């Protein structure tokens, strides 16, 4: 709303006389003049001032001046007003004034009505039929729940496994990797010792056989060329007898981690070296640890076994009673895998089931 008052009207007055005011300002200025007849009189005086001595007059002023709302002359802004009304661009007062004008002038009203027909109405029967092509699939809430459960279950299993295996052992295992070079050296030495023992055993057996046939040998005539050999043999037999009396000494290798036994005595006389590379891998360690803790008999451990171990670990950790079990068919095939807890239970058929 344009506020024209006694303090600021002068700046509007000149523009008003020169026809430079916008429609809204012009209307506001006329309202102001009505309220202030003194100013209106002053303005009339101004209008009549002869600005130049020559008194050149531009006769077409009337055509240049903008009308408040409408005029009947040829240069009317009627079209502009019609469109402004259609577009709701008129102020409330302008709209009232223009509507009154149209009401009192049927010809002009009909002209305005033509403008109203230019407003386009959307044809609602035209619709885009391929909406399905541009829609995107939404993740169902159930899927989200499954995702959350999966993450929670994974975390629980990891916690369970961690608890099951014991933190200290893990640390030791990792630290033990740094000692691989030392262990390799020990293995080589142990292997050499084992070979020496085996060689000694074979020799002893041979000597014993020779000793048993000694009497026959001595009764037969001795060729001269074998005399020195016999002396040598006698010395060997003496040594062999001494070796036979020897007992294999227990080789005890003490590791900082007792659980990893690189050597296992299978008899008094020999040691078996367990394949080092396989045993020292982390997966082997976990596999053996799970077997040991949960008591699996199968050589191969699958996801189910790991999950079961994890759940057992969680049960021990939190004192829960969750169960992960498999049911089997009469042919011995896995039928279903079932999980049960205090909160919920899931049963899923085996994928390999025929």
């Amino acid at each position, binding site marked *: 709303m344009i506020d024209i008052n006694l303090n600021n009207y002068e700046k509007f007055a000149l523009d008003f006389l020169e026809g430079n005011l916008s429609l809204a300002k012009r209307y506001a200025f006329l309202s102001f003049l009505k309220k202030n007849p003194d100013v209106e009189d002053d303005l009339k005086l101004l209008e009549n001032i002869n600005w130049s001595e020559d008194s050149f007059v531009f006769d077409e002023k009337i055509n240049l001046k903008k009308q408040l709302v409408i005029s009947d002359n040829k240069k009317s802004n009627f*079209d*502009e007003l019609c469109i402004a009304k259609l577009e709701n661009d008129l102020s409330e007062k302008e709209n009232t004034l223009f509507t009154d004008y149209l009401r009192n002038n049927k010809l002009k009203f009909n002209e305005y009505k*033509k403008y109203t027909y*230019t407003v*386009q109405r*959307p044809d609602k029967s035209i619709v885009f039929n*391929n*909406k399905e092509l541009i829609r995107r*699939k939404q993740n169902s809430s159930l899927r989200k729940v499954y995702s959350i459960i999966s993450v929670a279950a994974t975390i629980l299993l990891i916690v369970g496994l961690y608890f099951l295996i014991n933190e200290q052992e893990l640390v030791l295992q990792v630290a033990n990797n740094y000692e691989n070079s030392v262990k390799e050296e020990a293995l080589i030495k142990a292997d050499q010792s084992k070979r020496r023992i085996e060689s000694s055993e074979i020799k002893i057996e041979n000597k014993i056989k020779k000793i048993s046939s000694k009497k026959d040998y001595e009764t037969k005539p001795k060729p001269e060329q074998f005399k020195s050999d016999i002396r040598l043999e006698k010395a060997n037999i003496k040594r062999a007898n001494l070796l036979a009396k020897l007992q294999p000494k227990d080789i005890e290798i003490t590791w900082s981690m007792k659980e990893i036994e690189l050597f296992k005595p299978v008899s008094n006389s020999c040691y078996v070296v367990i394949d080092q590379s396989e045993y020292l891998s982390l997966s082997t360690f976990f596999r053996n640890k799970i077997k040991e803790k949960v008591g699996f008999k199968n050589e191969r451990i699958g996801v189910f076994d790991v999950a079961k171990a994890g759940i057992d670990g969680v049960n021990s950790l939190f004192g829960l009673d969750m169960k992960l079990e498999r049911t089997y068919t009469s042919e011995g095939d896995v039928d279903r895998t079932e999980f049960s807890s205090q909160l919920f239970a899931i049963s899923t058929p085996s994928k390999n089931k025929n």
Partner: protein
Amino acid sequence: MTVEDYNKSVNLYSDGIYRFILKNIKNQDEAKDIVQDVYEKLWVKSGDVSFDKVKSYLFSAAYHTMIDKIRKNKRITNISEYGEDIGFYSGTYNDLNEVLTEALDRLPGIQKSVILLRDYEGYSYKEIAEITNLSESQVKVYIYRGRLALKKYIGRLEVLV
């Protein structure tokens, strides 16, 4: 924008965009292609466009895609052309919509677009200016010229009504 918002925008605005484009280019297949292109663009930009701005984004993308297609097809040489006299209707009036459709088709592309955006979707001058990359004043001028031309084309209303 979530997938839900995106699909909601499909339900809410795809018909309007299709109508707007179809009215402009008069080719159903191309109009459908443009709608699909526009929603593909929206999906790619879905992270950057919020739901309250999606309508404006869609119409803006649709308008520019349409202009590109028109230029490519050389249907019209200058989309900004204006001031063309579309003549007046000299036949007998059977159906007002038919006459208006014919009148609208005779308007220069830019005038037709701004009038459709204004009348079909009720956009403000400012919004139309943003969609079409014009100034508000230009939008007003195009709407004014377009309506004036349509009114002239309708001609003798007394015969019609």
